[in-house]
Each structure stands twice: as structure tokens, then as C-alpha cells.
């Protein structure tokens, strides 16, 4: 889509420069190709609380929260102070700092089934490593995952198409979310050769409504893994600490063997973590894990602060309330304008879609219209709430959404 006005002029100018020196201009999930090109800002400059400003000076209430990490809001003073204090002492050392041990101890005390923790920088670091731990522990090859589930950018799971070999996924098999028959088929077919099952706590595929687990779904998966000696890996990277501080498995009543965190763990500072049962400890110690910045203390200090604030302020409840207010208001606003809307996912990580919109054009137009009014709604990716979203922010957003629905109705979309 060509820009229809000058609203995103500087974004476009920067993109034109970027396209000359950066493949794709902007790559990955932030690529304009993933939203609707020209209808959303491309570059941002600053942020505070639940708001951010793009490079053209447009202000937005942020419903992506940096694609998840901003659980307390941008630039939370306590978190930033903890990170800055740590950074004044050391940014990148030859050795880990004491804060790494403190953080591991804190997380192990928080996540009920866990006995140990390791750290990385991104979600992919942890999910890929977790697969290796499962294989090392079981001495098996196969991994089961859910179709369309996102677990990162490594060859075994990337949603991209380039640079892949058939061999990359020879031992990766996909079953459908909430489809226990398809899961059981693989269980039977590869009995004795399945090392791990990796899943997100609820299903949040791009371009589609999210899906919660059906009754008995998780219980069946958990029981099968226990019975067959399969390592159950919970990819809690997107949902972790937003649904339950003790891990999202607590919400759905099961226990994984390994759990991967990232995003909300440090309110935007670069950190990921994996925690596991004591039985997996030896295998974990054998799978090499490192990176240039993985021992950096400031993000760990930020995580310590973030986790303590979330506990102190019951962030989970606050975020849930904000999400409930938002989604109830959007459903009602859509109904008023004659649109049947579908609210999916948990309120803290919600997504809104149109009931009858196979081409996604309504969705894209609606989200673009809300965004240009000052609240960022991604048309194809689930949204995130933070503790910084106040009832007033939600009310302002609903006003924008009401106008956007009216635009759609006037256009006959």
C-alpha cells in the first residue's frame, strides 16, 4: 500500500535508505510485509509507559508492547534503575556475575517443578537448546510440534522459507492444535523414538485467531509424555509471566519437564531462560550453551527487578483486567456497527478478528484505521497488554475503535 498522506513520511524515508543497505529493509517480524505496508509506522523513536512515538512524531497506545516484553510498560523506573546500577559496575565481563546465581535461585523458587535454570538472549536460543536437552536425555530423535506454532528462527522451526534443507526437519513432525487424534497417530508411529513435544500454552498462530486448549487436551498430552518417557517442553516465551507468574502451565493444570521464557522476564532487557526438572539436569549440563553476551549482568538485574515488581503488584491480575475491558469494549463496539467480532486468546494476550473475513481485508483496514488514530493494533499478530495500560487508556482506545468501525461501515467493507 502506498502511503496516502504524510503521516509516515519519515518512516518511508528511512525505509528507502534502509532498503539500500539492509536486506528486506526491515527483516523478521517487524517487516512491513507482515502487517500492511504503508498503513503502519515502520520506525519508532521513544516510548514510556504504555505509549510510544514513531519517527514522524505520531503517538500510540501500544498494544504490541515490543511484541511482548513490555509487561510493566516502557522505561519502568525501577527496572531501568536496577539495570543501570548493574551496568555502572559491569556490562560485559569474562565471568558471570553474582546476579546470575541470584536470578537462577529466584526463578527456581518461583517455577514449582524446576530445579535448575540457564540463560540466553532470545527465545530461539532456549527452544532450540531445549530440544537438544530432550534428545540428550532420551537418546531419541523425534520432536513433535503443533502446526503453525512459532518457536523461533532456527531451521527446525522457522516460518521462513529460505536456506532450508529437507534434512533440517526430517525428525520434526507436526500435529494440529486440539487434535489429539493427530497427536496419537505420531505417538504410535514413532513410539520409542520421540524425544520431546514442544508446545505453547495456548495456540497463537499469525494471521489467525488464537485457540485455547480444549478440555482434556493438555492432560492427554501430559499423560502421554509421562507414559512414553517423552520430554514435555513448554514454550512459554510469549505467554510467560503474563498469565501466571509461576509459568503458564499453572493456568492450564499440567506440568512440563522444561519451560522456556523470554519477553516479559526482564521488561525489555535482552534475556531468555530455560528451567527444568532435576531429572534433566545431567542432560542439560552436557548440551553446550553460550553466546557473546549471555553472561551480561544488567539484563539479569533487570529481570530480578521485573519479577519482584510483578509479584509485589500482582501484575497478572492487572493485565488481565485491562485486557478484559479492552476486548469486551471492542466486541460491543463491533456489534453496534453490525460486525460480529471474535475475541480469542487470554485477555492479557488477546487478539480480535472479524467472524467473516477470509481475505483479511476488514481486519487490515480496521487495524490500520485504529492505528492512525493512535492505538497500535497489529492486524495479523496477537496483541499484548501491560500493567501500564490504565482504564483511561483503554477507554480512549475504544473511542478510536468506534470511529474505525464507522469508517469500515461507511466504506461497505
Amino acid at each position: 500500500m502506498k502511503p496516502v498522506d504524510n503521516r509516515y513520511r519519515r518512516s518511508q524515508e528511512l525505509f528507502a535508505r534502509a532498503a539500500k543497505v539492509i536486506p528486506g529493509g526491515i527483516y523478521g517480524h517487524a517487516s512491513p510485509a507482515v502487517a500492511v505496508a504503508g498503513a503502519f509506522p515502520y520506525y519508532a523513536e521513544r516510548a514510556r509507559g504504555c505509549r510510544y512515538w514513531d519517527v514522524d512524531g505520531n503517538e500510540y497506545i501500544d498494544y504490541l508492547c515490543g511484541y511482548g516484553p513490555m509487561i510493566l510498560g516502557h522505561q519502568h523506573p525501577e527496572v531501568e534503575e536496577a539495570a543501570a546500577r548493574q551496568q555502572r559496575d559491569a556490562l560485559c565481563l569474562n565471568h558471570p556475575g553474582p546476579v546470575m546465581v541470584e536470578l537462577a535461585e529466584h526463578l527456581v523458587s518461583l517455577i514449582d517443578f524446576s530445579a535448575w535454570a540457564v540463560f540466553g538472549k532470545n527465545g530461539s536460543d532456549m527452544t532450540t537448546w531445549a530440544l537438544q536437552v530432550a534428545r540428550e536425555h532420551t537418546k531419541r530423535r523425534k520432536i513433535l510440534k503443533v502446526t503453525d506454532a512459532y518457536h523461533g528462527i532456527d531451521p527446525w522451526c522457522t516460518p521462513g522459507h529460505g536456506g532450508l534443507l529437507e534434512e533440517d526437519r526430517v525428525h520434526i513432525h507436526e500435529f494440529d492444535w486440539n487434535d489429539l487424534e493427530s497427536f496419537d497417530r505420531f505417538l504410535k508411529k514413532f513410539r520409542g523414538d520421540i524425544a520431546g513435544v514442544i508446545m505453547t500454552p495456548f495456540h497463537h498462530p499469525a494471521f489467525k485467531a488464537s485457540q485455547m486448549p480444549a478440555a482434556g487436551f493438555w492432560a492427554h498430552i501430559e499423560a502421554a509424555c509421562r507414559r512414553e518417557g517423552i520430554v514435555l517442553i513448554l514454550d512459554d516465551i510469549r505467554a510467560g509471566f503474563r498469565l501466571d507468574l509461576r509459568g503458564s502451565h499453572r493456568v492450564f493444570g499440567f506440568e512440563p519437564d522444561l519451560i522456556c521464557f523470554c519477553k516479559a522476564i526482564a521488561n525489555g532487557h535482552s534475556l531468555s531462560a530455560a528451567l527444568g526438572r532435576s531429572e534433566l539436569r545431567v542432560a542439560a549440563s552436557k548440551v553446550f550453551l553460550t553466546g557473546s553476551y549471555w553472561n551480561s549482568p544488567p539484563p539479569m538485574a533487570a529481570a530480578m527487578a521485573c519479577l519482584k515488581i510483578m509479584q509485589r503488584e500482582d501484575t497478572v491480575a492487572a493485565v488481565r483486567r485491562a485486557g478484559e475491558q479492552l476486548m469486551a469494549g471492542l466486541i460491543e463496539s463491533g456489534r453496534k456497527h453490525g460486525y460480529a467480532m471474535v475475541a480469542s486468546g487470554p485477555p492479557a494476550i488477546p487478539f480480535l478478528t472479524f467472524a467473516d473475513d477470509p481475505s483479511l481485508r476488514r481486519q487490515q483496514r480496521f487495524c490500520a484505521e485504529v492505528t492512525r488514530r493512535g492505538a497500535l493494533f497489529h492486524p495479523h499478530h496477537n496483541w499484548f497488554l501491560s500493567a501500564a495500560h490504565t482504564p483511561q487508556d483503554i477507554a480512549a482506545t475504544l473511542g478510536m475503535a468506534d470511529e474505525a468501525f464507522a469508517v469500515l461501515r461507511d466504506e461497505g467493507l
Partner: protein
Amino acid sequence: MLSHLYLSAVLPCLADLAEQDPAARALVAKSDASISLAVLGGPGATVYLRHGRILWQNGSAAKASLLLLFCGERHLNAFFSGKKWAVPLPVWGGWRIGLLGRFAKLAAILEAVLNGDEATLRSAAGRRLHTRLSLIAAGLGLGALARGDPESQQALRSVPPGLAAFTIDGEARATVWFEHGSADCAAGWSDPPRRPDVTIAFANIDVAYRAMRDELDTMAAIGSGDLCIDGLIPLADGLNVVMERMRIYLQP
């Protein structure tokens, strides 16, 4: 698979070739005949030469002016890839030497244009023709691949159903479409039968040219508006993967 691509994706390009290229049009200006190509026990297609226009039809016509038989799919593939030895058997109308000669010349022009040989790409008109015909072949090839290529079928399983149209802005009659999920994997070089679920529009012939030759940073092109994806993005993304298969099959 390749023979199906030649018959249902490459051969139909003759229609646009005659429409756009004066030399090709002149070759059939005085013709009013039909040529059927048939693989023994396999697929076939017919082209109708109508006073400067060329029409394509699926399946071999029993009453064609000239019926060219290929002993097998490899024979037909060799013919289309320009192998001199791969002469078809004129089982009917073989005495129409002139028609046979004109068809051979048309096939040679088509091959040169689609392969993008040096002489073709030297001029803007040649590049334009190469681009248009490549787009037609790629779009129509989606139907053939969806029907018969196991790897494409596997890739399409995770692609949402819908009608996709590929078009070049500023070019007349430059839309190819494919309906994923339809029973016959329908595809066409014409106005789509309904509003497409996704439209992939190249801003101009130069952008399309680079895209057809895999020389375009498509993500950057989307961001800058040179390539506009309107609608069901996962369908466009998935079809792009299948189109890559076409490139592999048809590489010279």
C-alpha cells in the same frame, strides 16, 4: 510433471506472444489452423492460429489441422527444451509443411523469450515480453504444480484456500490468477472470475522483471510499495514458495 508444465503453462504463453510481439504475430498472420500436441497415453493441448491471434485449449483436438505426437513425456520435454533430435511425429497433417515450420519458429521464439536469452533481454521490448510471459507461465504453472507435484502439494497444505491474482500495473491484460482449494486447481490468464482474496501487484514492468528473474528483494519492495500485496498475505506467501518449484523445473 514437466510435460504438464510445458503444455498448460508454457504453451499458453503463445497467445500473449502473438499479441505482443510483431514478429510472432507476422508468423501466424495468414494462418487459420490448429495444432494439437499429444503425449502417447498422456496429456495434450491444442493451439489455434487465427489470423494473427493464438488461442490455447487444454487437451488435444481430434480434428486439428496438425497432430504432433510425442512418444512419451521425456520426448515432449526434450522438444520444448530445444533439443534438435526431439522431432515430434506428425501423425496427421504432416503434409502441411508450412504450418509445421511456422509452429517450429514460434516455439523457438517462445523458448528464447522465456529463457531470457541475451538477444531478448537487450531491448526494453524484449525484457517486457520476457516478464509478461514469465508471469503467465509462473501463474498458470501453479495450477499444474498443485495438481501433480508432490512437493508443491505438501507446501500448499499449510496455505489458506483462496483466489490469488498477480498483475503488473500499467500493463494492459497482464493478470494471471490461481484458485487454491478449487477442485481443479483452476488458473487463468484473464480477468479473475471474482474479486481475488489476494492481489499481488507489481508497480511496473521493471519491478516485475526483477521479480521474475529472482533479482528483487521482495520484502523491501513490499515496504516501499513497489510490490503491493492486498488481502490474504499467507496465500501470497505460500504461492511464492510453489512458484520457486516452477523455476526449478524450467531452468534452462
